[in-house]
């Protein structure tokens, strides 16, 4: 085990997959010579050359479709969409082309590809550089959606996503880049579709993903001091969703909340909340609560914090649920 930060875990995963399989290649703005706007592809251009680590023009639709086409004939492209806010430009290729090709070809043409994209707040850069738009993609059959929260997870999940035979939207929260965590020295992968119980508990289940997992854990610490034992589930993969882990936990705790940074309304937490209520309503001691982003665009600067879930809010709601 070595402690590395989230940022490097991404770079290592890309590096290992580029080395392992020459069908893997990267495309994106500034992913090449400059090593990436966030330094996430540092060193890869030198190691694998300009064709496997390709700087592209500002053409998000085009490069996402490039990946669709390359994937169709057996390559394993990894696209970077610099900010998830710009994924609006790529959604046609993801939702209409990548997601539907295997289906409409009668199961004959697979589209392995990964779109990595940087989501969430933390850079305090306002309306066009801060969104988390995972629910656009969880609504589209044929896409997988991954949203990791730790260096260990991001590395193992990114490697699995690259090896997966389906299009994967892989979301990296900008607020996690400097987070450090243990990562094995030997090679490993984490299967898509498996949630991870990041903390065991018995009184309330906090379901979360991405950066919100850490707020949930922090809240769980605080709650423990007040005698509330919270279980924290990190979904890690939103599609396919690990319902089993969610439901088993809520059966035990009888209380659930979903914490996510995206806009609450029609966010992925609505799906999770609905499933829990559908399946376990008679077990619930309190309604499932969602703690999530405000119904506003994201303002510039520190004000953004007030638009995202906070540890205090999680604690407050957990207490309301448990007392």
């Amino acid at each position, binding site marked *: 085990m070595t402690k590395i930060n989230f940022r490097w875990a991404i770079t290592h995963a890309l590096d290992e997959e580029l080395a392992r399989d020459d069908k893997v290649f990267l495309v994106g703005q500034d992913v090449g010579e400059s090593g990436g706007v966030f330094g996430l592809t540092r060193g890869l251009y030198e190691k694998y050359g300009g064709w496997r680590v390709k700087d592209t023009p500002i053409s998000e639709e085009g*490069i996402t*479709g*490039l990946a669709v086409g390359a994937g169709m004939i057996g390559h394993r492209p990894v696209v970077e969409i610099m900010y998830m806010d710009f994924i609006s430009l790529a959604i046609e*290729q993801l939702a209409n082309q990548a997601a539907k090709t295997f289906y*409409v070809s009668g199961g004959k043409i697979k589209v392995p590809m990964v779109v990595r994209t940087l989501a969430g707040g933390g850079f305090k850069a306002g309306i066009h550089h801060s969104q988390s738009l995972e629910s656009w993609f969880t609504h589209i059959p044929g896409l*997988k959606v991954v949203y990791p929260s730790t260096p260990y997870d991001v590395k193992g999940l990114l490697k699995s996503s690259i090896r997966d035979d389906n299009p994967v939207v892989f979301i990296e929260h900008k607020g996690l880049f400097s987070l450090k965590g243990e990562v094995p020295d030997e090679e490993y992968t984490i299967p898509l579709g498996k949630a991870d119980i990041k903390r065991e508990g018995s009184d309330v289940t906090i379901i979360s993903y991405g950066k919100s997992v850490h707020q949930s854990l922090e809240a769980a610490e605080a709650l423990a001091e007040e005698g509330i034992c919270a279980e924290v589930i990190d979904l890690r993969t939103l599609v396919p969703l690990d319902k089993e882990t969610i439901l088993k936990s809520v059966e035990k705790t009888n209380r659930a909340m979903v914490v996510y940074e995206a806009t609450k309304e029609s966010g992925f937490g609505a799906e999770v909340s609905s499933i829990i209520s559908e399946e376990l309503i008679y077990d619930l001691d309190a309604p499932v609560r969602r703690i999530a982003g405000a119904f506003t665009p994201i303002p510039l600067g520190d004000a953004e914090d007030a638009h995202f879930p906070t540890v205090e809010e999680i604690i407050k709601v957990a207490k309301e649920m448990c007392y």
Partner: protein
Amino acid sequence: MDMKEFKLNYYEKLYLARHFEDELMKLFADNKVVGWIHSNKGHEVIGVSLALAMKSHDYIVPHHRDRPAYLAKGLSAKSLLAEIMGKTTGCCGGIGGELHIMDVETRIYGPTGVLGSNLPIALGIAYANKLAGNDHVVVCNFGEGGSNRGSFHEVLNMAALWSLPIVFVCENNKFVEFTPMQKHMNIEDVARRASGYDIEGIIADAFNPMETYETFKYAIEKARRGDGPTLVEAKTYRLDGHYEGDPMKYRDEEEKKYWLERDPIIGFKASLLNESIANESELESLEASVHQVLKEAVEFALKSEPLKVSDTFKNVYA
């Protein structure tokens, strides 16, 4: 292949394309087709020329009027017709229908319901081929209408920048649904846009079979040599409506007459006879064999099993 063989082969494919369409329209009128059909009468020379100029390992990423290319490239009339009729024996098992023909064997890729979205896919196939270091060429087709989508610009720029092995084929048939192309752009020639990417733009008269063939051959071999993309604009005319059932109120009948008189299928046949490349009876037997193929295809498709509803819940994920 000598010239005679080549031309007969060419004529057979033209004839097949045209008469496939006739059969399809009859089946459509008989309610045997699922969804719409977009006639490609007037586009046959493009598809046939492309297919003959391509190698079997070359790829085509078509638009919605490219049945002539599918057939000429080797997709069987049976498989194509069955797909359009929603039968399990179709190339995609009957789930996609007319707009989404794909076939790994004959290298037809990219579902085409959203205009312009096939261009980035074609770019990706060309990129992957370049990366793999092989000599496979990608042909990507679209209409003059669809070429006004932003994807055209992004893709031509990248293809040119990286000198990818790809040929862009604009099938300019003068209409975009129910409006003339003049309502969509203020230029006559889409080929003119090639210069903005510093690539070659060439116009071919798609009512002239050999000219069109030679043009594609040139562009495809250029791409194969590593000399990068070409934008070929094939000038044609949509002889039928946008889709079956279109009353075509917007059509100038004089104009249609002008084009009908130049119908390349009739003209090419005449040239074969005039230039004594073939005689009547040779052509008749060739035509008869096409009709036999089509007859078998229709029978095959009619008696094939329709897509089972339960199968439409499969293949969401690989």
